[in-house]
């Protein structure tokens, strides 16, 4: 056997072994069970809801054509997964309150003579809707299905498709990118019942609060009017004991 044949045989053998190894690895990866979408969604919610009862400040800055043109401040009190109370703090909204109890939502406007029931469609007004501020427990509102693995920039993500399972959900469908490593939300696309892609979101920054890593900055992009986007900045998240009567629908007077 010539030396050339010997080298060729070794090369073919190595190539065959490498092929087998690669095939085995790929087959193994392909046969891995899809991640449990429910668990992933619950883990991702923990980055937005650190404690069973807490208070967090939210600042929303709206940008038109790249220029900041509006700023709104809110104090959000949340208890459990279905009680949220939002106090509007900006001068032009002072005195307003928003209450969410399960599927029902009320807004208290100082210039109307009563608390006003909000329809699901009214939850969608603005770049950052009432629902974006008040409903952040997606595992309660949506049924998740694992779609695929995908990279967002350099970040490996699990992609979930969320479908509304209760009428209180803000959107009909959400496509949700969660970092593979820890289920941290990375990106989202929001769709209406009509199928229209209404908004997209990027979850930009996380910060430690009270020993937990929580969402600090979220950007919402208007997919209808592409010139507009809103930045939501969360700060001073604090675990708090909140009485049930803070979330009582019949009280118009709040502080």
């Amino acid at each position, binding site marked *: 056997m010539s030396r050339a044949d010997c080298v060729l045989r070794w090369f073919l053998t190595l190539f065959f072994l490498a092929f087998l190894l690669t095939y085995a690895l790929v087959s193994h990866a392909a046969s891995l069970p899809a991640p449990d979408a429910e668990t992933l969604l619950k883990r991702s919610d923990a980055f937005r809801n650190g404690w069973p009862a807490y208070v967090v400040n939210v600042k929303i800055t709206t940008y038109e054509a790249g220029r900041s043109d509006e700023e709104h401040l809110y104090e959000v009190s949340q208890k459990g997964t279905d009680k949220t109370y939002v106090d509007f703090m900006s*001068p032009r909204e002072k005195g307003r309150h928003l209450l969410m109890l399960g599927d029902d939502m009320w807004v208290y406007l100082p210039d109307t*003579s009563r*608390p006003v029931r909000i*329809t699901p469609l*009214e939850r969608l007004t603005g770049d950052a809707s009432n629902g974006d501020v008040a409903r952040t427990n997606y595992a309660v509102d949506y049924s998740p299905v694992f779609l695929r693995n995908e990279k967002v920039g350099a970040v490996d993500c699990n992609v979930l498709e969320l479908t509304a399972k209760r009428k209180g959900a803000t959107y009909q469908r959400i496509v949700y990118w969660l970092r593979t490593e820890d289920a941290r939300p990375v990106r989202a696309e929001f769709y209406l019942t009509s199928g229209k892609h209404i908004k997209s979101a990027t979850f930009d920054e996380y910060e430690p609060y009270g020993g937990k890593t929580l969402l600090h900055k979220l950007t919402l992009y208007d997919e209808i009017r592409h010139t*507009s986007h809103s930045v939501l900045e969360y700060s001073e998240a604090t675990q708090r004991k909140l009485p049930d009567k803070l979330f009582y629908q*019949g009280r118009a007077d709040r502080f």
Partner: protein
Amino acid sequence: MKYGVLISGFLLLAGACCTFAQDAASSEGGPLKTRYSVSVIDDATFYGNLREPLPDVLNQVLVEPSFSLRYQDRLSFSTSLIGVAGTYSDNYSQLRVKETYASLSAGDFDFTAGRKMVRWGTGYAFTAAGVLDPPRNPTDPTDRLNLNEGRDMVKADWVRGRHALSIAWSTAALAPANADLHDTTALRYNVLVRGFDTSLIAGHDRDSDSFGGLTFTRVLGQAWEIHGEGMWRDQAVVLLGGKFTMHSGVSFIGEFYTPPNTAYYRDMSISPLAGRQHYAFFNASKSRLRELPGWKEWDISGSIVANLNNHSSTGVFDVNRWFGNHFSSYMHMEIPHGAKTSDYGAAPYSTATSLGVRFQL
């Protein structure tokens, strides 16, 4: 001069409140929390084709400071005042107490004493069951100048889960002489059940009637809200209404209201012999015309309120425009229509146009 001093006094008071509140705000998170707001409105109303020998312009300046103090989520004190200075057939100035009350919270109970606004009615332009509510004005349901005042009362609330029970006793002793109020004792049970926000209300007006009724609101599907009130006070009073919201954010509100022609419900312009009245209200509004480039800060609203018995009506048109976070301007126009002896046609003008500037802190 007199009302100039009043306004100066209010501004000083407001400034003092602001300073105090801002200092106190640094202790946010401590046991003591404060909130404040100040609103200043300069309003001019122009009356067109006046049928009576009256000035055709009403000028008003309103200063409205509000201040709240809360200690340990247990004790609170709130006050909201209104200073009005105006020029019409005469110069006048008034100080009104919109609200001033103290509250104590203990377990599931809240106790309140003082002048306070409560809103038990669910109607937008009318109310049948809002026995302690400020009066609704269907041509100005949002109380554009914030002139509504609360009732003087002691009130106890018990809240547990989705159930709440309130009992209130309100005195008419401190109410303005022309208010035609009685001492009122009222009880309300409120519960949220299967999406229905429902209240049962009962009570008694001293030297007058006993009453009982219910209110409800419910959201249906994606875009509809319905509400209603029914009350028995000597005779039946019914209010039914609904709101529809479009994808674009345009909202429509419609209401039908039928009060009996009794002393309690009768409008001054209605003859005691006129019998039961029927009213309809329709409103279309859009806040923030964000779909139109450059119109994001604009809100518009148009309404019509009609007395179906005497075929009189008033058309109302509102435009509001924000300038930054603190300033806004508005135009409010009312156009009455109908016979001179009718409910809305009796207005002594063909148009009333209010223009104003509002500052809010």
